[in-house]
């Protein structure tokens, strides 16, 4: 029974393949856009989206981002004390309703806290892929992981 990792369980260079992935539905897209107050018609108006260069509604970026982070937590920050922030979040390929997102994370760096003995900073890169294996998103973030043994 575990969710996330203790500080001691992270090692620079380790790669975790996250499982399961998730299919993003049309409802997800509309619901997420509206709940986050994002009314760009590109995400919620099919008729308008057909008049735009892509000709269809892409999945809203903040949903792809949120979902990738969420599916990475069981293998990474599931015991975290605090998320410190993100260096970047890059969107490389658009996604559409009906496509599925899968993720993996690589540990970039593991560092003891300079001030507190019971924790450390973990730096990871998380990548998201669609069902064809095309990379759709990549991000880097840092979080505080507690130590199992203090």
């Amino acid at each position, binding site marked *: 029974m575990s969710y996330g990792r203790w500080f001691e369980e992270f090692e620079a260079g380790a790669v975790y393949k996250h499982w399961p992935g998730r299919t993003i539905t049309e409802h997800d897209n509309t619901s997420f856009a509206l709940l986050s107050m994002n009314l760009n018609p590109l995400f919620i108006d099919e008729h308008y989206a057909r008049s735009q260069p892509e000709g269809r509604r892409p999945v809203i970026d903040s949903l792809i*981002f949120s979902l990738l*982070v*969420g599916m990475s937590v069981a293998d990474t920050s599931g015991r975290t004390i605090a998320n410190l*922030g993100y260096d970047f*979040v890059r969107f490389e390929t658009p996604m559409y309703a009906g496509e599925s997102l899968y993720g993996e994370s690589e540990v970039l760096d593991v560092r003891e806290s300079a001030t507190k003995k019971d924790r450390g900073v973990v730096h990871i890169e998380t990548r998201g892929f669609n069902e064809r294996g095309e990379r759709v998103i990549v991000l880097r973030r840092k979080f505080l992981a507690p130590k199992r043994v203090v």
Partner: protein
Amino acid sequence: MRYGRYLEELQTGQSFEHWPGRTITEFDDTYFSLMSMNQHPLHVDDYWSRGTQHGQRLVEGPLVISLVIGMSQADIGGRALRTIEYSDIKHTEPVFHGDTIYARSKVTAVDANGIVTVYSEGLNQKGAVVVSFERRILVPRKEAQ
């Protein structure tokens, strides 16, 4: 009747106080965390969270970030064709259930290809900045539409 801006309407240095804000409820956080597959107990287990640093659950980070982006769209990115990148996202204060988030943004760069760089901050009801980040979006020209 307007939502967002065309490239011709955006200039470096413009700043916006977005309106309205939004109160983040317990339902929002539980729903958002679970639908995005985040089962961290700090978002979904109230009993366990009482024994943690703040003695209560914290609102999930991507929810606060997504909301601040959403709030900025009416003034800035409501016509954007795509998002290229978010960068330098900092969570500076915890957000609790019942807190209300407001947002403000500044346009920090506009290039001829339509890439607009926006710096945004989310604030709580006490005026403390809880999150800040930059993002780059692709905005069309009015004449192209």
